[in-house]
Each structure stands twice: as structure tokens, then as C-alpha cells.
């Protein structure tokens, strides 16, 4: 009888993955809804995290015919302590276990909903589904400033560090063989003749003596010639060749511009924060390296760290243009648009010193938008003030500009999706 022990531990892990995929696929609708709720509800700081999804049990059950409650049935139970035949017992209430648990056995476990954990990746996948980075048209290759060097065969000139010794020596051997072959062949035949003469000619004969001398002279010339072939010649040298290929830039910088004046309360800041972080998460999908610059402003703008950006409170009026000026300065100083994909996100309650709004529009249109791939403005208040009106003039004119309003946490996600709709979807909607 064949007996064997097989170690299966390394094989066939995740056999159920296909089943899980089918499961997720089937409940896509519910999962999407749940993800949406989760994003609204949970602190956005830890958005990139697994999520428990709950699906109503009735949606997930697989129906089969089975007996319902009612009729008459006789059940046997163990552990009788006090009953004798004919005793009558009060009927236990439904859903209650306990003694005489007559009903419950095959009418379901009484569990309510089906909850499972969507992994971080799956969660984000759903979250980002049918979103695509706007205007992600790669700049022309020629304009791509980032280069990567690739091997590309060998060349006959280069720096000593790139010298390929084996290739060079191989070339040298070939050259030495080729250049010297004629002389060597002659040399060998003359040597043979000389040897024959020396062996055959009678000693002291004049004719052969001259012939020998001539041969020897010729041999000496040829030897000399062969010896003069260089061991290594400059034309033998081979160098590793490297070419520079342009690579698409994969760096992005995201500017978060937020109004922190007195009118921005915690609720509004929270909305803004959600928007920024969604944008950040979204960019992490597309770029390897992302810098974030936080610019907050009231009447003056300042670049701050994240903590201060979200949590410091300020009072006073609002001059939005100060932030835009600072943003432009920072771009010019640190983030060359030919190397960086610049994204801007501005959040404000729309409150601005009224003379300043026109200047904001100009700054945006002339200075900032040409440098950025995308600039989104989100107003976290309902009423449309002059900043909104000024900005509204840019919509449609500048393709990389978009603006929306969001007044509740629940609106952030739709607004976000709206802003970053797939281009195709946008076209269809238009």
C-alpha cells in the first residue's frame, strides 16, 4: 500500500482568490456604496486602510427549499433534568436559545448581516475606479527633461572607464592575424627554402652561398616587419556605449492652498482637508514621487508644515492673491514645470477682499495655470462671492482649471469624482 506525506505548504496558496474576485464582482454595487459611506464617515487621514463592508444577509443568501416554523415536529434533546412524560413547557420565544430549542435548528443561525474586510488595495481600487488623472497627456518626449542612460552596444571611442577589454583584445587579435598573414606566409616559405638549401647545398659553393645570404636578408626583413605589427592599436579599442533616453517624468508636486482667515471654521477646514487628501491619494496612484507644499493665507501667505496648515487658527481678513503669488514663486524656485507635474488645489470659503479677486483671476490665468497640469478650486461655502465669479470666468477658457462647491462632507466625494472624471466620461456627459 502506497503511503506518502506530501508537503503542500508552498503550493497553491490563495486558491480561493478566483472565488473572492467573483464574490467582489457580484457585490460591486453594495461594495461601492459602502466604500463611499466609509470615505464620508471615516477620518480621511487614514483613508488608505482596509474597510469592513457589510452586506445585508438577505442579499447574500443562497435560497434553498427548507422547512419553516410551524407544523408539528418531535425533537430529541439530551440532558433531561426534571421532565417526565406529559410535562408541558412554555414555548420559547423566537430567536431565544435555551431549553426546548425547538424551532431554531434549521431556520438559519439568526445572524444578521454579512460583514467582511475589503483589503486596503481593494478598497482603494474601488475608490479610484473610473477616475483618471485629468489632462495626463504626456509632454512631448523632446521636452522631457529627465533622462535615463541605457546600454546600446559598443563604439570605437569613449572614455577609458568604459573600455571593454575583452572586446578590444578580440579585435586586436583579429587585426594582428589579418595584417601579418601575408608576411608570415612568405617568411615561412623562405625559411623552408633556406633550410633546404642549407641541408642540400655542398659546403663552400658560391652560388648557394649567395642565395643563402639573399634569403637570410629577406627573412630578416620579414621578421622585422612581422615584429612591427603592434600588439594593441587604437583602432582595436572598443568602448561600452550608453545612450540617454528621455523618460517621462514621474514626479509631481501638489500645492495645497487654503484660506485660514477667521471665516474658515473647523467644519470648512475639514472639508478642505478631505479634498486635499483625496487629491494626494489620487496622485500617489500615478506618480512615484510626490511633494506637497502647504500654503495657508489670510492677508498674508506663508508656507507651513502639515500640522500648522490644518490646525493653526488665524483671524483677520483675506487676501487670496498673496497665496497665489507665493505659489508661483515656489514653483519657479523649486519645481521646474519641465521636471515636475504641478497640481494645485485651492480651498476657500469664497471670502476675499473684493479688490483682490480680479487680481487672483489674472494671476491664475497668466502665471499659474500655464505652469500647472491641473488646478482645482473648491469653495466650501454656499454663497457665491466675487472670488467665485471671477474664477468662473476661467472655466472653459483654461482646460486645466476646474471649480466646484462642497458644503458637506458627503459632497466631497462626488465633487472629487466630478472634478477628476475620466476624460471619456466627461466627453460623454458634455
Amino acid at each position: 500500500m502506497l503511503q506518502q506525506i506530501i508537503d503542500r505548504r508552498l503550493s497553491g496558496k490563495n486558491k480561493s482568490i478566483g472565488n473572492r474576485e467573483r464574490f467582489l464582482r457580484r457585490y460591486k454595487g453594495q461594495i461601492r456604496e459602502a466604500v463611499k459611506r466609509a470615505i464620508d464617515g471615516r477620518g480621511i487621514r487614514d483613508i488608505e486602510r482596509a474597510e469592513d463592508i457589510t452586506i445585508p444577509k438577505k442579499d447574500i443568501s443562497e435560497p434553498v427549499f427548507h422547512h419553516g416554523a410551524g407544523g408539528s415536529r418531535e425533537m430529541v434533546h439530551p440532558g433531561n433534568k426534571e421532565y417526565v412524560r406529559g410535562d408541558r413547557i412554555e414555548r420559547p420565544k423566537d430567536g431565544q436559545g435555551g431549553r426546548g430549542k425547538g424551532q431554531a435548528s434549521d431556520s438559519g443561525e439568526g445572524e444578521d448581516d454579512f460583514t467582511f474586510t475589503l483589503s486596503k488595495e481593494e478598497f482603494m481600487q474601488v475608490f479610484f475606479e473610473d477616475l483618471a488623472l485629468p489632462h495626463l497627456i504626456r509632454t512631448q518626449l523632446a521636452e522631457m527633461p529627465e533622462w535615463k542612460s541605457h546600454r546600446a552596444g559598443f563604439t570605437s571611442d569613449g572614455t577609458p572607464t568604459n573600455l571593454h577589454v575583452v572586446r578590444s583584445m578580440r579585435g586586436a587579435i583579429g587585426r594582428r592575424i589579418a595584417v601579418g598573414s601575408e608576411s608570415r606566409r612568405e617568411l615561412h616559405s623562405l625559411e623552408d627554402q633556406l633550410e633546404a638549401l642549407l641541408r642540400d647545398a655542398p659546403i663552400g659553393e658560391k652560388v648557394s652561398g649567395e642565395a643563402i645570404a639573399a634569403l637570410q636578408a629577406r627573412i630578416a626583413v620579414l621578421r622585422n616587419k612581422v615584429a612591427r605589427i603592434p600588439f594593441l592599436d587604437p583602432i582595436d579599442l572598443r568602448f561600452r556605449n550608453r545612450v540617454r533616453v528621455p523618460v517621462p517624468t514621474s514626479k509631481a508636486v501638489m500645492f495645497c492652498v487654503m484660506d485660514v482667515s477667521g471665516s474658515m471654521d473647523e467644519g470648512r477646514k475639514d472639508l478642505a482637508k478631505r479634498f486635499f487628501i483625496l487629491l494626494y491619494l489620487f496622485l500617489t496612484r500615478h506618480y512615484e514621487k510626490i511633494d506637497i507644499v502647504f500654503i495657508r493665507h489670510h492677508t498674508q501667505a506663508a508656507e507651513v508644515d502639515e500640522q500648522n496648515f490644518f490646525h493653526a487658527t488665524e483671524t483677520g481678513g483675506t487676501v487670496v492673491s498673496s497665496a497665489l503669488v507665493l505659489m508661483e514663486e515656489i514653483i519657479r524656485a523649486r519645481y521646474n514645470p519641465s521636471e515636475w507635474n504641478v497640481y494645485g488645489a485651492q480651498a476657500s470659503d469664497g471670502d476675499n477682499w473684493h479688490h483682490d479677486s480680479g487680481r487672483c483671476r489674472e494671476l491664475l490665468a497668466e502665471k499659474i495655470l500655464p505652469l500647472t497640469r491641473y488646478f482645482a478650486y473648491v469653495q466650501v461655502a454656499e454663497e457665491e462671492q466675487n472670488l467665485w465669479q471671477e474664477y468662473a470666468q476661467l472655466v472653459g477658457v483654461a482646460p486645466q482649471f476646474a471649480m466646484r462647491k462642497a458644503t458637506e462632507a458627503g459632497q466631497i466625494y462626488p465633487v472629487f469624482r466630478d472634478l477628476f472624471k475620466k476624460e471619456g466620461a466627461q466627453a460623454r456627459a458634455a
Partner: protein
Amino acid sequence: MSTVMPLSQPLPPGPRPAERLPAPSDWTFELIEDYHRVIRATAARFGLDTYPNQLEVITAEQMMDAYASVGMPVNYRHWSYGKEFISTEKNYKRGAMGLAYEIVINSNPCISYLMEENTMPMQALVIAHAAYGHNSFFKGNYLFRMWTDASSIIDYLVYAKNYVAECEERHGLDAVEALLDSCHALANHGVDRYRRPSRKSLAQELAERKDREHHAQQQVNDLWRTLPRRVEKDGAAPEAKRFPDEPQENLLYFVEKNAPLLEPWQREVVRIVRKVAQYFYPQRQTQVMNEGWATFWHHKILNTMYDDGHLTDGVMIEWLKSHTNVVYQPQVGDRGYSGLNPYALGFAMYTDIRRICEAPTDEDRDWFPGLAGTPWLPALHHAMHNFKDESFVGQYLSPKLMRDLRLFAIVDDEDDEELEVSAIHDDAGYRRVREALARQYDLGSREPNIQVWNVNLRGDRALTLRHTQHNSRPLADGVQEVLKHVARLWGFPVHLESVDDDGDVTQRWAVEPKSD
């Protein structure tokens, strides 16, 4: 399959070993081999006839994989298995449940999974329990012999998996998923209880598939031909000719053969689900017997190994602890009570049979005249070979065991305000308790009896199913959902009538097929 005649008594032990088997908690392959060798030899002493064993070491995660696909090493893909996996994983991670220590597959060779996390004593327990207990049950029990073909199941499942995958590719995930959903809804109604299934090798199955597709389609066409073969002017009135001639209990088979609109690939998928369901049919009817048998034998084998000087005290303590947990029977009214524990009942019954054979009391002689005082080993094998849970309990549950377990029966009648204790473990009640418990394990009373009653051949092609109530127990909610699935398979309206004990229809359902 040849049945070895059961031994009339255990064979004598081999020479006593110089020292006991080492008992570190971590197992090694060599150690498993050593233990296995002794377990095998000990099992042979009791004449356990098994398929060849294939022990496979797997991780907890793989164990969950196996759980999810109904314990099979390979199966077709379906979302419900994904759901199963997710809930298993969740419960496991939350610590709400431990994984079973073992899964064993009724195949030839018989595959037993040893979980990596198990300690050496646990592996020994699993080997004795699964590889010798369950394995010999699979090979010996008449239901398994009749309904399953251990040698071809794995091949068949591989075929099923590939076929379903192919269908998904050709006809789309949605179409296949919907079809499987519908088939699963009827999976418990995919067996002819009173007809032996034919046993075919996979090669035969495949060879016949083409013919079958062709033939089946022809039959269906014939059934639904709109031109009457011969105009029946008088004589037999059309409505007098019923189809099917007799009610059919195998709904899936009926659908496979007669559904008007199914395409050949859909019929094949129905067949696959039916075949797989049929494979599990014996398991549903032998839970007490099967688990009890395996538990009895791990207990016997490991104890014998101890007596023969193979096992250390530490190993004994460890597996006994698990054993005790497995056969724990909470009493009614306890918090953890959820019915009779099949392990506990089965173990107690086999142990009791042995007791009746070896040390019968007068009561036992009275109740089991043919059993009391006979050699216990053949008696036990006889019980394992020839019964299912229902008949096993009906035959072997002894008054002593009923007293030990303090069994009592309760009648729950919906017309009655209160429950009534109908019998307890006393002279007046033994038979009634035993009958009630046997009935409880009867598949016929556990699952509703639903049969194909009629097909309207001349009219709207509606299919009528009939539910014959058992003790006037109605169907649970969800009937409408199941009928939707039936309608999807049938392609035309489906009706269900529920008939009470007097033959009156008490409830009706009707579903139109969705036009999608």
C-alpha cells in the same frame, strides 16, 4: 472494491518497542512517518480496511481554502465559495472558531490534510481519525459505495473546473454565475433516492458528453414538438397524458433532461452541479455514523498504541484533551447548546455497541438478542457497513445510552400553546425516543419533499412542482426566490403547490421567468 472480511477479533500486538515514540510538540516529516507506521500497524490489527492514504501538510490558509470549496482540493469557481472563504477567514482571525484539525477527502487515494500548526500529538490524532477512521468508513459504508466513486472524484472535479472556466470564457461570467446560482438552489434536490446511480469513469463521462448533448437535445425537441405525431382525434384526451408519467424527485436531473431552452453547455453545467451534489449525498446522511466511527477509532487506536508502549503520557494527555472537547455534549438549556453533537452521539453509540457485545446486561440481551455477547469487532464493522444515521440510531440506540445521555423528546405542534414532553428515558419512552431521534436524522424529514408534478405540454409549458408536507410543516421563506431560480432554468412559468397530509393544496406560488 473488495471488502475484506472483518476480523473476528483484534490481532495480537507486535513486539513491544524498546522505547516510546519521541514526543516533541513540533512535528517533523520523519516523526510523522514514524507515528504513521505505528498507527497503520495498529489499525491493521483491528482490520480497518482503507483506501491508500495520502497525507498532505498544509497551512492554515490552505485549510481555509479547502473549507471554502466544500472541502475539496479543487472545484469550479463560484462567488459563494468566495463568500464561504471570507466568513471562515473572518471567524478564524477573530478567534471565534478554530479550524478543524483535519479535512479528509473521500477519494482514492484518500487525502487527509494535516495542518502545519498542529502539534505532533495532534497530527497523530488526525492521522488516526481521518486517515484510518473516516477513510475506512468511506470505503466500507454502503451509501458511500453506492453513491460515490472515490477513484474518479478528483478527476471529475478537475474536469468540472475546467469546463466551467471554459464556459465563463465563452459565455461570460454573468451567464455562468446565474446558471450556477440556480443550480445550487436545487442542489439538494439532485439525487434519485431510490435509484442507484451509474458509476462511470471520467473518460466515459467525457466520451459520452458529446453523444449526450446531442441525444438530450433531441429528446427535448421531441418532447416539445409542436406538430403532433399523429392527430389524436379521440381516444385518450390530451390532458390525460401526463408528463412526467410519475412525479420526479430529482429536480436537477429533470431540468437537465427536459428544460426546453437550455443550451447544451448549460445542461452540462447542471449535470456537473448534480454530480457534485450527489457525491455529498451520503455525507449528509451519515454524519453521526461517520464522525462517531472516526472518533471511536482514533480513541481505540491511540489507546492501544499507549498500551503497546508506543505513546508517552504527554502525547496521551494532549490528544485526550482534544478528544474530550470534540465529544463534549452540552445539555439542553446550556449556553452552548445547539442540538445533539454528532461526534458525541456517534462515539457513544459505537462504544455502547462494543459494551453490549462484551458485557451485556439482561436489558441488553432483551433489546439486542442478536448482538449481545457476540464478538465486538465484526459487530462494529457490520454496523458501519450497512446503516445510515437514521437506521443506525433506530437499530442500535440502547436504553442504557438513552439514560446516560438523558434523552427526552419534545413535541412542538403549532396548534398547541405549549410544547409537550412526549417521552423520556424510561421504560415507557425508550422506543418513542429512539424512533423520534431516528426520524430526526432521516433526510426525508429534514428536507422538504419537493417533486416535479406536472408539465403543461400543450399550453404555456409551465412546470408544476409539488411540496408534500411532512407533519404539516410548511416551507420557510425564500420559496419565491428558489422558484425564480427554477424558472430561470426552466425558461417558462413555474408553479409550486404545497400539499398537506390530507392531500389538499394549502399554499401556491407562481413565478414567471424573467426575460433577460
